[in-house]
């Protein structure tokens, strides 16, 4: 039996360690370990709840916006404070544009290199790639000249030995199976994606005043002044610029990203049978379109055991069903709870570090293990897309069916919905969610315009804090899944603050019942052709879009390679 340790496993955001035991070319057991202590919640104790979002958006470098949004929601929930419609729509536009940015970057810049062999693209016939592109969609940027230009660029890049961003790729690995022209088409879209993700980011910048770290939030609304004439506020010109950007992004996501993901998925159809892991799926509704966060454009809920028919909706962002179901276990985490180590609800949550060594059967991670009604749950775009599909959400159904139809035609036979419970399924669902979010961007944009046209310019309701204790929670269906912040406020100051983040749900270690968490469970039975080059393990872990620790990022002038694979 071989043991593989990959530390860290994330391409961009650091400090996840994965250990796998491999026998007969398959993973037989796995451990997911967060290697950094996150105790950032403790910084918030004693502070003014109105300032919490400014600190929480520093928790993570990738997810700044989401931690800001969910923090103001938690405090608003504690105060039972309504939020003006304009503020909801502006926040929704920011949320959706941020998620589109994140999903595009995940597929092209992070996940694709696990499946696409860039060096193989050098051998491709651009005409064949263009023909494939034209057969998949009417996207206008799949022409022969453009594809040839991409190939020439890659040739000069690889020829000069500057692999740069592709240096961590596994080209030539036996698990790389795409024909050269598919690799070329994907490589072209990799480059185009770098432009489009900037477009998505620009929407966030216009509305949030700045990226990274938006500036326009407030407990009770947003600080954007709406005055269609004044240059210093949200003007018609800026709003129409956003509309143009939404159109450009839709063209790319529907024309390139959905077909790419469908085609890559079909050509790796065996990967629809690996990586299911924990199939209890949890997501929350988002994009509220009322002042209380009860009515939301995008549905969410709980699907036990992968059975879409057993879907239980979560109705709005204040639902007791969600609030009362969440706990965090620390039996296998480097924490201890005063008064016994049984799982605790986040309002009672504690963050007391208790480090031991890495103990396979004991404590081995800085990440806690969240549960929903004592069950482990997988979160993320797959959980969300399945919930939206189960609740009959029309755009989700339309985009999902289109993706499955393209995949089926490339594969030569239909790909069933159950194929989504897999490594490829998580990537496919992220593309579907990205397309759904673009429809939502259009919709939320129109809602904002219509509301302003009715003469409503309100963006802020001032909060007031009562004497004594109030408790609140905020939820957000973030790019990596369910994000919740939990706040206890006493006499206007924060007494307790806990963030239960998506990667905690997915990357958490074993819980009180000793059963593996979603990352761990998804790795079991994955094939591993070469334990020295465990590409297959990376495929499954990357399909979750891991984003851990979110904290330290000291530079090291010794320039040591930090990505380390140890096969023991």
């Amino acid at each position, binding site marked *: 039996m071989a043991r593989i340790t990959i530390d860290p496993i*994330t*391409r*961009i*955001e*650091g*400090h996840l360690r994965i250990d796998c035991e491999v026998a007969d070319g398959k993973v037989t057991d796995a451990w997911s370990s967060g290697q950094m202590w996150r*105790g*950032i919640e403790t*910084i918030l104790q004693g502070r003014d709840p109105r300032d919490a979002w400014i*600190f929480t958006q*520093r*928790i*993570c*470098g*990738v997810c*700044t916006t989401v931690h800001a949004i969910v923090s103001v929601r938690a405090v608003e929930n504690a105060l039972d404070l309504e939020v003006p419609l304009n503020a909801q729509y502006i926040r929704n536009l920011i949320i959706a544009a941020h998620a589109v*940015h994140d999903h595009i970057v995940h597929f092209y*810049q992070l996940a694709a290199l696990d499946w696409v062999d860039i060096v193989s693209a050098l051998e491709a016939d651009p005409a064949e790639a263009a023909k494939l592109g034209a057969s998949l969609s009417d996207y*206008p*940027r799949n*022409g022969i*000249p*453009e594809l040839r*230009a*991409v190939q020439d*660029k890659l040739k000069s*890049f690889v020829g000069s030995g*500057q692999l*740069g*961003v592709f*240096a*961590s790729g596994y080209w030539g690995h036996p698990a790389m199976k795409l024909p050269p022209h598919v690799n070329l088409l994907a490589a*072209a879209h990799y*480059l*185009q994606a*770098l*432009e*489009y*993700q*900037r*477009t998505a*980011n*620009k929407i966030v910048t216009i509305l949030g005043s700045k*990226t*990274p*770290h938006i500036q326009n939030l407030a407990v009770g609304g947003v600080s954007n002044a709406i005055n269609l004439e004044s240059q210093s506020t949200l003007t018609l010109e800026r709003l129409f610029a956003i509309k143009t950007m939404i159109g450009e992004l839709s063209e790319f996501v529907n024309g390139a990203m959905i077909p790419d993901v469908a085609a890559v998925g079909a050509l790796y159809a065996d990967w629809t049978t690996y990586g299911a892991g924990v199939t209890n799926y949890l997501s929350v509704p988002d994009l509220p379109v009322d002042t209380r966060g009860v009515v939301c454009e995008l549905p969410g809920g709980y699907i036990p055991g992968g059975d879409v028919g057993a879907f239980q909706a979560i109705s709005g962002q204040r639902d007791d069903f969600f609030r009362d179901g969440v706990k965090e276990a620390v039996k296998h985490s480097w924490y201890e709870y005063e008064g016994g180590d049984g799982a605790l609800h986040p309002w009672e949550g504690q963050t007391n570090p208790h480090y031991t060594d890495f103990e396979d059967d004991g404590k081995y991670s800085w990440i806690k293990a969240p549960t929903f009604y004592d069950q482990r749950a997988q979160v993320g775009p797959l959980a969300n897309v399945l919930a939206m599909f189960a609740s009959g959400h029309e755009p989700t159904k339309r985009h999902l069916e289109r993706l499955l139809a393209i995949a089926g035609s490339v594969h030569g036979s239909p790909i069933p919905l159950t194929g989504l419970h897999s490594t490829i399924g998580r990537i496919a669902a992220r593309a579907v969610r990205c397309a759904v979010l673009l429809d939502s961007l259009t919709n939320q944009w129109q809602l904002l315009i219509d509301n302003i046209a009715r003469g409503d310019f309100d963006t802020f309701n001032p909060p007031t804090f009562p004497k004594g204790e109030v408790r609140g929670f905020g939820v957000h269906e973030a790019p990596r899944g369910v994000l919740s912040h939990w706040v206890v406020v006493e006499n206007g100051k924060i007494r307790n603050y806990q963030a239960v983040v998506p990667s905690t749900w997915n990357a958490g270690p074993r819980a009180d019942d000793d059963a593996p968490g979603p990352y761990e469970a998804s790795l079991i039975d994955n094939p591993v052709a070469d334990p020295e080059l465990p590409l297959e393990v990376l495929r499954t872990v990357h399909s979750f879009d891991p984003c851990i*620790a979110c*904290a*330290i*990022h*000291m*530079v*090291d*002038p*010794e*320039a*040591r*390679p*930090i*990505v380390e694979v140890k096969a023991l």
Partner: protein
Amino acid sequence: MRSGGRDSRSVGPVAGRAPLHQPDSSPKVLVLGLGNILLRDEGVGVHAVNTLARSHRLPEGVAVLDGGTSGMDLLDAVASCERLIVCDAIRSDEPPGSAFCIDGDEIAAFFATRISPHQIGLSEVLANLELLGERPEHITLVGIVPADLSLGTELSAAGRRGLARGVDLILAKIGDPAAATGEAVAGRCA
């Protein structure tokens, strides 16, 4: 770097389509502070650029950005500058509170070798900009050696000393015509 038209240096827009990203009135020099301000001296780079922006009148064409610990979010801002000055906490054998620059060839080696969880996506951002032909031509790293990386929002005494030295180094770099023309000598400048 910005002298060529966009079409000449990227695979970008097909004929007849408006470019997605028109070069606008971009700064020539971007001073980018990186770090996590919730981990005391980890955030010294961010505090340094904020101090710089607050307390100094910067020449025309110099912009300051608090980048936090962001990665790909920074691509647009970095793409649109000619010179990039990154200020960040740096692991070093020098005593806490020291500050120094890395320039020239050293910087190329520094960012080329690693896909690192440290300096989170900046090496990724630069590698992708290389691919787009939009990597800033001159990059300087102003490194400050931290003392205390524990949870908290206040800098340590050494961190505050390092901040002051880092700000001085950045100011010197901004005013340094040699650096502006790419003739800066590689190595430590303090």
